[in-house]
């Protein structure tokens, strides 16, 4: 199948006063037309920066895409001039943001904001655009769409605003929708409504979409494949079913073990990932997860593991871990039973009690602080 999107070795960095932040550090992935992909990770792991890089929306300065290529539909987005990128944004690639209040313009009516894209990209005249806008609002189940089209964003509730965002994203029949935490700001019952809507629309229009979230529950029911990100890198790639049934990266194990499940019947103790996420100005020299990994060995701190296929797993299942790769010491580990080396765990716990890495770096650089 020809790929719709092919990202190769993407590196996005932010040049700050404290140093260079390696926000996205060598991310590669592909997406076929009509496919749904989930990108999971905690805040600061680079998942949103990846999405913004795809649209070339990284504020510059301080940010810059320093390396890599983004082939969308046969063209390299990174080599286009600004006009060409503008022709793609909102037209072929659309984006749904986390906070629908700050991403809608408060002084323009909803209909004005949706028709803007229609007039610009599809060259519709005003009347046509208005008609299409109302159709779109009906499509996302906004009651009495005709009347509400002339309302302003503040007259809508959070869930309704997110519906408007979805209508706007769909307006030009995009080939790809990037949804960045689309339901994080919403309540669970509203989240269920929005996810249901997204799922149906993606099926109906065969739009490819990338769902970016920190919630493993949300991607479990929504996507075909999942990529797990940590510290600016993809650390595991697999089919959704495979990832939950047979994860192959200690970070993914940690995530799955640390969240309480709604359907857990006994009151088991949670097993948190101890330690703190890495400082992306001075990332760990070896595996990014090594400082928090209970299964670590010497090699993990010295060499950077590649994203490689894992034996005893489905063919397209890849992970960035020396332990689970060919000949590793975690090949037969049952992550549900074996929670790792207790001594290492105690050592990592001490790190939680200590200062975060970025503070240590500032202190090491000799910055003075008010003495007690």
């Amino acid at each position: 199948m020809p790929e719709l999107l092919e990202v190769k070795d993407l590196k996005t960095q932010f040049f700050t006063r404290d140093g260079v932040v390696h926000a996205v550090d060598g991310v590669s992935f592909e997406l076929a037309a009509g496919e749904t992909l989930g990108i999971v990770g905690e805040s600061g792991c680079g998942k949103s920066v990846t999405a913004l890089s795809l649209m070339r929306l990284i504020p510059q300065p301080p940010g810059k895409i320093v390396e890599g290529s983004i082939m969308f539909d046969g063209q390299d987005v990174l080599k286009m001039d600004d006009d060409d990128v503008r022709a793609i944004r909102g037209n072929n690639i659309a984006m749904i943001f986390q906070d629908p209040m700050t991403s809608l313009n408060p002084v323009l009516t909803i209909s004005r904001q949706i028709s803007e894209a229609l007039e610009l990209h599809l060259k519709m005249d005003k009347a046509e655009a208005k008609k299409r806008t109302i159709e779109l609002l009906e499509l996302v189940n906004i009651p009495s769409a005709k009347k509400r089209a002339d309302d302003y964003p503040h007259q809508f509730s959070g869930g309704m605003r997110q519906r408007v965002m979805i209508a706007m994203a769909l307006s030009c029949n995009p080939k790809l929708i990037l949804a960045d935490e689309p339901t994080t700001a919403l309540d669970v019952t509203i989240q269920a409504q929005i996810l249901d809507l997204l799922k149906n629309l993606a099926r109906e229009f065969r739009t490819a979409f990338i769902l970016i979230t920190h919630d493993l529950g949300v991607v479990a029911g929504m996507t075909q494949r999942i990529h797990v990100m940590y510290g600016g890198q993809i650390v595991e790639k697999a089919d959704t079913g495979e990832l939950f049934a047979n994860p192959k990266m200690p970070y993914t194990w940690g995530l799955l073990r640390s969240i309480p499940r709604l359907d857990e019947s006994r009151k088991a103790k949670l097993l948190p990932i101890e330690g703190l996420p890495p400082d992306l100005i001075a990332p760990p020299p070896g595996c990014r997860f090594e400082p928090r990994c209970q299964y670590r060995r010497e090699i993990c701190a010295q060499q950077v593991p590649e994203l490689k296929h894992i034996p005893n797993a489905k063919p397209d299942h890849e992970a960035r871990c020396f332990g689970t790769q060919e000949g590793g010491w975690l090949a037969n580990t049952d992550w549900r039973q074996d929670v790792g080396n207790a001594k290492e765990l105690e050592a990592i716990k001490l790190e939680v009690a200590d200062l975060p890495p970025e503070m240590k770096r500032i202190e090491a650089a000799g910055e003075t602080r008010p003495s007690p």
Partner: protein
Amino acid sequence: MTVQPDEFIQRSRSTATFDSGKNLLDVKALKMHFPLTQGIIFQRQVGAVRAVDGIDFFVEKGETLGLVGESGCGKSTTGRAILQLYKPTSGEVVFDGVELTKLGGESMRKMRRRMQMIFQDPYASLNPRMTVGNIIGEPLEVHNLASGKAKTERVQELLKIVGLNPYFTNRYPHEFSGGQRQRIGVARALAVEPEFIVADEPISALDVSIQAQVINLLEELQDKFKLTYLFIAHDLSVVRHISDRVAVMYLGKIVELADRVDLYEHPLHPYSQALLSAVPIPDPAVEGKRKRIILTGDVPSPVNPPTGCRFHTRCWKAQEICSEVDPEFIEHAPRHWAACHFPGA
């Protein structure tokens, strides 16, 4: 706990405020309305936000009561009204036999030593200009518990208890990560050796991998210091994990209150059922098989709540009676209360 049949019948028509002798906190008909005013010089009251509108519940010594609901349902207001951070409009809050709403300033201040709060946002709830030592030490001075060297030692001990380096007393909040700041907030609450802690969404501002660290810390502290928690959260999975009993709120009212397993396995109120079915489960095998109840519409405004049952505008079971008569909060099974005309599956 077993309940004698006659005792059960006797209180089955009453509200959820029975006294088993173990109650640390009794909340009776608590109302918290915020006035809406109009006019610049002469402010007329034109209405009220009925944030909490008549709720009854109790918290037993040593247990964790989870309070769940969507944003704007009044769960945080309930927590604050219990601690008298808001002056309740009406109703009673009885803490260990003492009615709090009628207490004066000085006696209330003394009671406050026994009840503390942990806030949601660890970035906003710590004063950026105070050192960690001063933040944790302040309640010790306010309540005359320790000063000077004893205070410093106590602060270091508290930092150790919450899993932080005891030598951080001279540092400022901005030097810590979110999870560490929440630990500082916990240490501050523990400083006065309280019996009761209201934890208002203590983990929702934290990252997934850090949430479990804080949940475990709260559980360990509960065992160690025999604490009683009112745990307010919107995440039903977390509430299931940490609570002994759970209360579900909707638009200023408690619609269901039951033991943890009872509520999650056999929810009686349609709102609880919808809420539970809406939570995504991180397991595609389970997720594929689940039937989801998708509620239509949004939560109505608490300024002008629907007549009768407040949930009837979104309820798929609603009949005529639901829009006319407000259902009573009744004990349908032992220790399982619900306010619904048609409870059950």
